[in-house]
């Protein structure tokens, strides 16, 4: 299992891996907002957490379809499916590797993009924390979509559309927790804890669903 984690991490940083692409796309999306919205610093800092979260969500969706597709293309997926480690565990490890390779870089890049959006230190910290907690949920939800679409040759957009409705609650609670940290009357903990709950829920449901889909994707 450690071997699988290390292999997927290696692949994500080597040529053709998605790690850098996701971060670059994230930066592109967030960096163009100030140019589009104009130099109104108050407005930027007000919409900042939402923009950073939307950027992170879109970048996370971008790399999802490759989670099982590359393994299918070269035949590795067949061999992974034949081993009962069990399969749910194999999928969970692949999700973790995918998050470490694609999700964690987004979290690390988010403070820099927070500066672009003229966000306060507290808002930057809160956004980074909510991203750290929320992006794993996106990966776990995405694993199901990626597993369902693995047999389709150009499944990329389809995965995003399949996954988006389930990813919306993550976005809602992530953004509301980030705002609650800076705006006084709203409490921070309730939306944040719901976000934690969503992540833990999908950490269980996601790999099971993805393993089922992979088992039935045989062709």
């Amino acid at each position: 299992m450690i071997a699988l984690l290390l292999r997927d991490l290696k692949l994500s940083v080597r040529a053709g891996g998605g790690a850098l692409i996701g971060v670059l796309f994230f930066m592109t999306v967030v960096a163009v907002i100030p140019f589009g919205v104009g130099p109104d610093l108050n407005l930027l800092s007000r919409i900042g957490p939402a923009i950073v979260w939307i950027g992170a969500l879109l970048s996370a969706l971008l790399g999802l379809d490759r989670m099982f597709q590359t393994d299918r293309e070269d035949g590795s997926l067949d061999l992974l499916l034949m081993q009962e480690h069990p399969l749910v565990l194999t999928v969970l490890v692949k999700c973790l590797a995918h998050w470490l390779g694609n999700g964690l870089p987004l979290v690390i890049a988010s403070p820099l993009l927070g500066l672009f959006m003229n966000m306060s230190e507290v808002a930057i910290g809160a956004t980074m924390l909510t991203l750290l907690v929320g992006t794993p949920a996106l990966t776990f939800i995405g694993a199901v979509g990626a597993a369902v679409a693995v047999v389709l040759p150009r499944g990329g957009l389809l995965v995003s559309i399949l996954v988006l409705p389930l990813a919306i609650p993550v976005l809602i609670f992530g953004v509301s927790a980030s705002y609650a940290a800076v705006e006084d009357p709203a409490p921070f903990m309730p939306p944040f804890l719901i976000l934690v709950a969503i992540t833990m829920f999908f950490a269980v449901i996601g790999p099971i669903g993805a393993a089922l889909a992979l088992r039935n994707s045989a062709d």
Partner: protein
Amino acid sequence: MMRLTAENLSARRGEDLIFKDISFVLDRGESLVLTGRNGSGKSTLLRTVAGLLRPESGRVVWQSESADPGMRAAEACHYLGHRNAMKAEMTVSENLSFWKEFLGDFSGGHGMSVGEAAESVGLGGIVHLPFGYLSAGQQRRMAFAKLLVAWRPVWILDEPTAALDVSAEEVFTGLIKEHLAAGGIALAATHQPLGLENARELRMTGFAGVMEEMW
């Protein structure tokens, strides 16, 4: 005692029944060669035995002293398909050591080290190269080396000698013979004769036509 049993296997692709009621029993040291023209269902049968396709009817059973009764037969199998299951971005030794660790040894045998396995397929000196740099034939040989690094009693080989020169075919045949001599079992689909002695032959005719089993 080690035995791979297929009972009344049938498989369907879409609406069409590809083959119907195929049964065979393979004991240690035995091999089965599938022949037949393109599209006759050789690969489908192999994928069904490997547990990658759900059979329409029938089942595949693996029996041995150490196996739990409910174990999936696929876990005792190595599957070498049309695709090599190796990552072009990683070096050969990274690929092989990943599979060695991930697959692990099945009870009753031990896999070779990565270096020995590469030596066995005749490509000892190039394990440090990225897999993508190798020629098609070398890639196929390295994919075969994957079978050697982790022990599995059953080898399922789908066109193992595609893209290979004559000397490599001999190397493969030699390795399959060694595997059988060590008490292994092999199933292979092939167009070229593999030169295995006392291999049974199953001629696939496709589309649920007549099947004849010859000795």
